[in-house]
């Protein structure tokens, strides 16, 4: 089992992508899991540069519900809030 899991360290810069969705048929794609969580670099510090609303939590919350609804149809919601068919071309950072 362990030999199937890449040890490669992901160093590529990824787009800030808080609405990360993995394709349904991916199994143990370790690089993608790593990449999905790389956004931590953007956030370790103090975020209070503006006096508005930070919508990240609400986005994740609504997407969670949408994902649960549409997954039955092999669709996911992209970060642009559009349903997208799951397939080989689906990229978590798009």
């Amino acid at each position, binding site marked *: 089992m362990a030999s199937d899991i890449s040890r490669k360290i992901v160093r590529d810069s990824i787009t800030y992508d808080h609405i990360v969705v993995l394709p349904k048929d991916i199994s143990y794609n370790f690089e993608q899991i790593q990449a999905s969580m790389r956004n931590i*670099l953007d956030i*370790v510090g103090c975020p209070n540069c503006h006096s508005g609303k*930070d919508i*990240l939590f609400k986005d994740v919350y609504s997407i*969670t519900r949408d994902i649960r609804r549409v*997954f039955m149809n092999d669709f996911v919601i992209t970060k*642009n809030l559009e349903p997208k068919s799951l397939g080989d071309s689906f990229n978590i950072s798009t």
Partner: protein
Amino acid sequence: MNIPDRGVGLTYFLSLEPFIQSNIDLIDVIEIEPQNFWHHTLSDEFKMDKEVMEKIKNIPCKKIIHSVSIPIGGTVIPDYKQILLLNNIIKEIESPWISEHLSFNSVRYNGIMFNTGFLLPPIQSKRSVEYISRNINILKDEFQVPFAIETGVNYLKPNNNEVRDSEFVRMIVERSECGILLDLHNIWANELNGREKVEDFISNIPLDKVWEVHLAGGTREDNYWLDAHAGTIPDQLIEIAKNVIPRLRNLHAIIFELYPSYATKIEQNILREQLKILHSLWDIRGSDIREYSYERGIYNYNEPDYIPEEWEYTLARLVNGFKINTLLGDRLSSDPAIPLYNKLISSFRASMIARALPLTTRLLMLSLDIESILSDFWKIDMPKLFTTDEALSFIKYLEDLDLKIEYLKDILTLEKTILLCKIEDKNEIIYFKYNPLKVLESLLKMQLPSSVEPGIFEIKIGENGISNIDIADTNER
């Protein structure tokens, strides 16, 4: 004062880096908010993320620093540890000036210090000017480069016991001899929300002290126009900028502000158009050669009968959902901006947690009413300034709650370890009695994990957090 021009640019975030790199022809300067990338260690030290610093240094344009965690608008003295680190960063990226907010974000009351969760407006009084001037003088003495204050946003109703917004800024600048970062979106939002008109504000401040201009987009919420850095610059604000910027003869930069939560929602070509607009504004800077004068001196008003410390404590507690049974508490409680601030702070805190704890957040979202959990957490814990502190505090709260949610304990351990390795620059190994990848994968798909493969598994977490994660099935050794 000889300050070099830096031109047109935007606020730097990692998520904007691809855009910055591919549109560098329109970007003279990027504005760095260093604290976005700071680690606050368990021993109360601050460290800049080295990886991010290298990225910033490699971007082929000029840089300026806009500080966001030691605002000068309060009675609390700016933190020397942060000043020290800011000075190092100023030197490293050669920022010709530094700016901070005319707001407060921390309160000391009866010997206890707490964070407000938001940049809040100071009481606009003579006594307050004394404190603010002291803070500015400290920063002017400590920083190696000139210092400017940013004009703030204020959602509270105007108060007859305070000087007007413009007079407050003018009193501070005249007394402290600092520069002004004129945030046109802030003062426009203030006008839309019932405070001083932009035209009056501009006519009453020393425009020759304006070194930098901020422009941004906003959002509407509960009949307020919010300074949310939420998208493109509204046309009306561009028209205002066209009238104001020609009067700014010492302007050295125009910066477009965009917050990461909204950045992914804007198409790149639209963002590029915003930069072109900024360039057209830059080209008309200082072109109005008419002489303008503004009134100088101290203005007649009734000094409020409460001191700045009481104002800060009362406002900070009210906006975080606590009641204050004093005259000032009663008066401020009736201001409709109080529930607005409370809502905005909740959105910030929840988003900090969702960023730092993506797996925990999703598991809770899929398992129970996460909003009620967060709401209870807000009632017992004041906000933290740094994302990691807020996240670690929430983890402790959840550990004490001991919720019976499958995998939660392990996910909390994983994310806590990732955060600690990140902020403490250390390595850790944590063990699982099942293959955790299936659980991680399910949560990233926003699904509850179903079956897992039993065994003894370990995850190695490096000092760069999840980017150095390694996993092995120890049964195969």
